[in-house]
């Protein structure tokens, strides 16, 4: 697919230049007519606005054999485990994967990579997997990208699933990009919505781009498998069905020895409530003013019966709290039952990390702060007056 520009028709009105999300169109200095550069993704936004029909998409591209032959069947989820513990996002993906696999009429597989991780199997079946493909190998004992990518690619080559999901975690985002190269497939990063179209068997993948200001829907029409990493906490976890089982498939692979050696792993959140996964979160922003005032957040968290403390990037950058608490585009994505934002303006990069929270409460002294557009309950006021009263009211 490519964008064609009929320069005879182009009047140089510039309408297309304004709508292109990728800055791919520019007007020639000489006559104002439009030219396309390498940033073009053939999204078609410009075609729709051209008043004279000078723009068109060339679509006569043959589907690759893989997509056409239907050799690829089945829906897979990568079952990320760390130190033998399945990550929450795996259950979220199994829930969504179950729904999509049923629409396609195919079994749901989970791929478990690690060493001596058999005990993870039961939970995968109980959360919806029909099959668990397990590679048990010393090279996979601690995660490094290279052997994980090698194992995943080998399984994909062998079993040919048509869709593969992984969590958009440090691990998932770290090695699936390699898998995409090795199996020559598309990979859509950090999706927040997924749907399948059962006749063409296509995965519609929607994700935020430009820091969350814009959403984009992406397809991989001609390559299989269609792969995506999915943001944690955007899909709910399914209710586990106790005793549900399935097919346990042990794969014996010869893997190269890891080239990266893990010397030390430090869990920095061991003594704190982790914001990722917390039910209640109280977040402090620049409005808190200094590190000392974060104690107020801790107090509010305690009054709520053990909430996690979150932070905006402004608060993290100011050094008031560690980056493990940061919520947002470059921090964590959260989906608590209650999210209380105190002194946070609600810039889009923050909002993309918390806007699927069940109930959002904002406390800010500026009635124009964008966070109020997100909030279920907005309180306009000084947080240093409101929060202590809130703590008092909660303790009563």
């Amino acid at each position, binding site marked *: 697919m490519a964008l064609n520009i009929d320069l005879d028709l182009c009047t140089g009105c510039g309408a297309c230049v*304004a*709508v*292109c*999300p990728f800055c791919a169109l520019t007007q020639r200095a000489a006559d104002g007519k439009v030219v396309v550069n*390498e*940033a*073009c*993704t*053939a*999204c078609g*936004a410009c075609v729709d606005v051209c008043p004279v029909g000078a723009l068109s998409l060339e679509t006569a*591209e043959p589907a690759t054999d893989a997509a056409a032959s239907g050799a690829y069947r089945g829906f897979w989820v990568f079952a990320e485990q760390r130190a033998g513990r399945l990550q929450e996002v795996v259950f979220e993906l199994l829930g969504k994967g179950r729904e999509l696999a049923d629409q396609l009429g195919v079994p749901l597989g989970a791929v478990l990579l690690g060493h001596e991780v058999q005990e993870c199997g039961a939970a995968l079946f109980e959360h919806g997997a029909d099959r668990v493909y397990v590679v048990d190998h010393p090279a996979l004992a601690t995660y490094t*990208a290279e052997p994980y990518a090698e194992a995943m690619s080998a399984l994909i080559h062998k079993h040919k699933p048509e869709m593969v999901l992984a969590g958009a975690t440090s691990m998932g*985002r770290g090695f699936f*990009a*390699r898998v995409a*190269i090795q199996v020559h497939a598309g*990979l*859509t*990063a950090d999706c927040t919505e997924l749907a399948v179209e059962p006749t063409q068997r296509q995965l*519609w993948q929607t994700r935020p*781009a*430009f*820091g969350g*200001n*814009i*959403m*984009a*829907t*992406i*397809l*991989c029409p001609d390559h299989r498998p269609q792969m995506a990493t999915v943001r944690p906490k955007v899909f709910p976890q399914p209710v586990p069905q106790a005793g549900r089982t399935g097919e346990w498939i042990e794969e014996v692979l010869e893997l190269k020895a890891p*080239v990266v*050696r893990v*010397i*030390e*792993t*430090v869990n920095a*959140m061991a003594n704190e409530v*982790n914001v*990722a996964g917390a039910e209640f979160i109280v977040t402090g922003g620049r409005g808190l003013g200094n590190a000392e005032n974060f104690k107020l957040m801790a107090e509010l968290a305690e009054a709520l*019966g053990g909430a996690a403390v979150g932070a905006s990037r402004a608060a993290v950058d100011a050094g008031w709290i560690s*980056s*493990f608490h940061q919520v947002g585009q470059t921090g*964590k994505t959260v989906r608590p039952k209650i999210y209380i934002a105190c002194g946070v303006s609600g810039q889009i990069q923050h909002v993309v990390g918390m*806007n699927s929270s069940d*109930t959002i409460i904002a406390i800010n002294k500026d009635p124009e702060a964008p966070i*109020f*557009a*997100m909030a*279920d*309950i907005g*309180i*306009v*006021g000084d947080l240093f007056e*409101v929060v202590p*009263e*809130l703590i*008092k009211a909660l303790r*009563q």
Partner: protein
Amino acid sequence: MHIVVCVKQVPNTTQVRIDPETHTLVRDGVESVMNPFDENALEMALQLKEKHPGTQVTALTMGPPQAEAVLKEAVGRGADQVMLLCDQAFAGSDTWATSYALSRAISQMAPPPDLVLFGKQAIDGDTAQVGPGVADWLNLPCITYAYGIEIDGGMATVQRSFEDGYETLEVALPCALTVVKEANVPRMASLRGKMAARKLTIEPTTAAAIGADPDKIGLAASPTRVMKIFSPPPKTGGVMWQGEEPAAMARKLVEALRERQLI
């Protein structure tokens, strides 16, 4: 040592949005900048250069002709060489095709790099896929989310962050890293650097010059297709309280939460 840093020119995303009425992209006043995380990658390279005399730093970008601005910025800060991959044939490349193109460019470089650095992610696409992708084409190990590095005797000791902690890793050079913001505070361009940048004329490097397989670059070689773009839907149904006593609003909030059985 030879260090290659991949830098991308991106629009300043805090300013990018879709006009709710016209459904067109608001472009007025949106500036192009060096991807913020790439500034950290460049800074890591420059600090290594200071520690290890004789180190050469090459900044590489793929993009339209105006992307040379980020290369000039890199030279201003202390990069020694630059390469601008610029060819209509690269048009529409997704992360798969971009990774291939950058890897071809890097594999043409002499001497071959000991270290290839990337930003953690580009703030326009936010994929974080190009770094590991390039590494895969080059058959190099890649450590993502790195914030610290020490090099000694052909070995690198690297600190990287995870969702809930850190790791220290060891790897033999050559290798690739993607670098997070916590790594350092990027320097500004020096006066001398700016002079050097101003004098620089950058010849674009074509797809043919790096021996790129035409079937692996550009839109046709890109597995992913952007089908549609739209504004995130606004949230509705919220209430806003103001002008009341803080204590009254706090009590009302607690009541509302109890009513909704949230606490």
